[in-house]
């Protein structure tokens, strides 16, 4: 059995969030379309959905409760003391403000909570716990991999870094066969972090043969129009890892172009997986760690033709394309500029 962990990104992701992505993989995992899959039934692959969003939700609910208590109780204290209109009053005012349900709170707060608070440590522990539970029956001939999306790429990076350097160690399950990072934010969030969040180009999360690194292959997928992947894009230097990642061809970057749009949801995991180049790369390493097998040129062309027709039929106006392309012209030096771009993107896809 090959266990594949699916780690979600920011925003509301409840149980069953991966249903559409799994369905898309199942639909395209077709030996009629790709003959190299013939010997490898999908039933030998087990997708394991990882959830951690409830950790952020639980905190926001608690914060909301405190804000409500403070707000209602505060009304009973009808003082006109000038001190209350100063610092103290302002902080009470901030604390009594209930978290809104805006894009900023539902999506970007997840990023801030993960990167800058101990909720991030609870998330890391939760993921490791879920992985350990899923790999309980791992046998000698079994293997495991990770597909992570958006914030999930940063989360996965940290879990692997900590898990493989910790004791007891995640290494007792062996290295991951592959790590697939979709809309990789691991470098971007490192740069955004208010603290020293380490360096993703010098940590141990890299692909290698034999015992080094944490995986055998590293697939990195980004899109020219996705502001979560084009801002401070994950782009490792030649010295990355043990210095042999590129010479041994263990890193597989895929950059989708601006024309590769089948819907407005350019950041969604499903939108990425729909592209033949993305799902065939995934399939290559799903069935064969060395990725020797793969689609023929003819098969690839047939699938790309279908995909191109879908892009042409997509309900996307020229004005929308112009607006989303214009996001790339912004400045991305400060956290505020980056968050503003994401908010604009949120407005465009909603």
């Amino acid at each position: 059995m090959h266990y594949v962990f699916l780690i979600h990104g920011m925003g509301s992701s409840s149980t069953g969030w991966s249903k559409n992505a799994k369905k898309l993989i199942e639909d395209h995992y077709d030996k009629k379309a790709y003959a190299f899959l013939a010997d490898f039934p999908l039933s030998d692959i087990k997708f394991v959905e990882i959830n951690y969003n409830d950790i952020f939700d639980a905190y926001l609910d608690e914060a909301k409760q405190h804000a409500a208590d403070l707000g209602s109780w505060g009304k009973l204290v009808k003082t006109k003391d000038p001190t209350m209109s100063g610092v103290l009053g302002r902080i009470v005012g901030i604390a009594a403000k209930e978290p809104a349900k805006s894009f900023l709170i539902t999506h970007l707060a997840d990023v801030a909570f993960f990167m800058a608070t101990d909720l991030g440590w609870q998330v890391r522990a939760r993921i490791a716990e879920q992985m350990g539970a899923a790999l309980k029956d791992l046998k000698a001939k079994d293997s495991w991999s990770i597909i992570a999306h958006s914030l999930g790429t940063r989360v996965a990076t940290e879990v692997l870094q900590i898990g493989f350097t910790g004791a007891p160690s995640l290494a007792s399950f062996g290295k991951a066969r592959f790590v697939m990072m979709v809309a990789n934010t691991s470098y971007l969030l490192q740069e955004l972090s208010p603290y020293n969040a380490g360096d993703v180009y010098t940590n141990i999360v890299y692909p290698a043969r034999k015992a080094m690194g944490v995986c055998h292959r590293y697939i990195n997928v980004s899109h020219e129009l996705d502001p979560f992947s084009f801002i401070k894009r994950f782009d490792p230097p030649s010295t990355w890892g043990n210095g042999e990642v590129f010479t041994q061809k263990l890193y597989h970057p895929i950059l989708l172009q601006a024309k590769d749009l089948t819907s407005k949801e350019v950041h969604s995991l499903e939108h990425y997986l729909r592209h033949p180049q993305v799902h065939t790369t995934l399939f290559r390493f799903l069935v064969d760690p060395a990725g020797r097998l793969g689609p023929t040129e003819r098969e690839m062309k047939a699938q790309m033709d279908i995909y191109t027709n879908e892009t042409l039929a997509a309900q996307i106006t020229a004005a929308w394309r112009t607006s989303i392309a214009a996001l790339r012209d912004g400045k991305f030096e400060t956290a505020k500029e980056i968050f503003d771009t994401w908010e604009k993107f949120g407005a465009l896809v909603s």
Partner: protein
Amino acid sequence: MRSFRNRALCWALVSSLNAIAGAAGAQEVACESGAFYARLVKRYGETCMRDNPALQSRIEQATQGLYGGEAATKAWLEAIRDALRAQTAALPAPVAPGSDRYIAGLRKRLRDAIDFLADHREPGAALQACARLRTPTTSCPIDLDNFAPLEDSGDLIEENGCRDASEANAACRTVYETAVEIADSTLVARYTVDALHKPEREKFRAAMTRLGERWHAYLYDTGFQYWWELAGNRYLEEHCDNIFNWPMTRLLRKKCEHRTDTSGNPIGWRAVPEYHVVYLHPDVGAQYNTEEPHGDRLKPSLVFQWLGYEWWQWRGSKISKLRGVSFATTVSDNKVARTLGHGLQIRINEYAVSITSHGGKPALTLSLNLADKLSDLDEEWANRLKRISSQER
């Protein structure tokens, strides 16, 4: 009639046996065909393994008694090492020209696996030590991935050979057979290595469950933290040896642990804190002030903790002996006493009491859960008194 029935039964039996034999034959073909990697995947898959009692038996013999204690484990390791060496020596030599390097590569993997078994008597402890040493350029020498014939052997054996049964491919097929036999031996070694890692995996699972429970308890069973407190505490935990936190760490006799490599990448799981800072923390309470007129002495109050600490001990995954002290200001709508009072808040477990001075007059402010508790007690005592007085009557 009976004879006909017997013949029919006989025919049915023979047909069934033929069908079974045919199916087995087809199974054998399915298990032993295809390109090298696909062939190994099928060979070690559930269906083909079921039909390969010899390989199953080798694995069972290799892994049995593994958890029989330290002495037994050592004896077992020596036995399995010797058995594997003997099997390796008996493996057929490659016959196809040019195949030596492929077979040599596979043999090396097997030799590595055997050496591993000989060198590491206590893999659990060794793995833990390795995890601590692991850096981007230093690997753990006992990784499972040293024994990954399935993953890498395709690089050693050409995939496009032996596709047909022609005479010209006879030598190629012999090489494949040799490679499969070596892969089998390596699989047995891999099973044993896997079995040796099992205790570590169990420890990992238990440790992660506890860690998750502790983080939850830290966030929800100690005082609630506003987002700025969460951020501040995360910062202080990662700089626990700084001038602000260092004296408190020493005073409270708590650990200061945050391990990173030279680039700041975290090393290992961070222990869940045993203390945190409380700052700029507003809350609500019930204030009792004797300076106020009768009937108006208990009233709602805002409690504002400027700065303080909470600390506790871990009992399993539970918070134990939670204590706290902070500088606090209370605000209440007083008629006689001053609105604002300054003093200290003291926390014991989930209950907190603030003692503040309102223009020199003391007031007590209770956390709401404590006020609730006291009113419950009050009711309980009243009920008891009622019961006692009714009994006396």
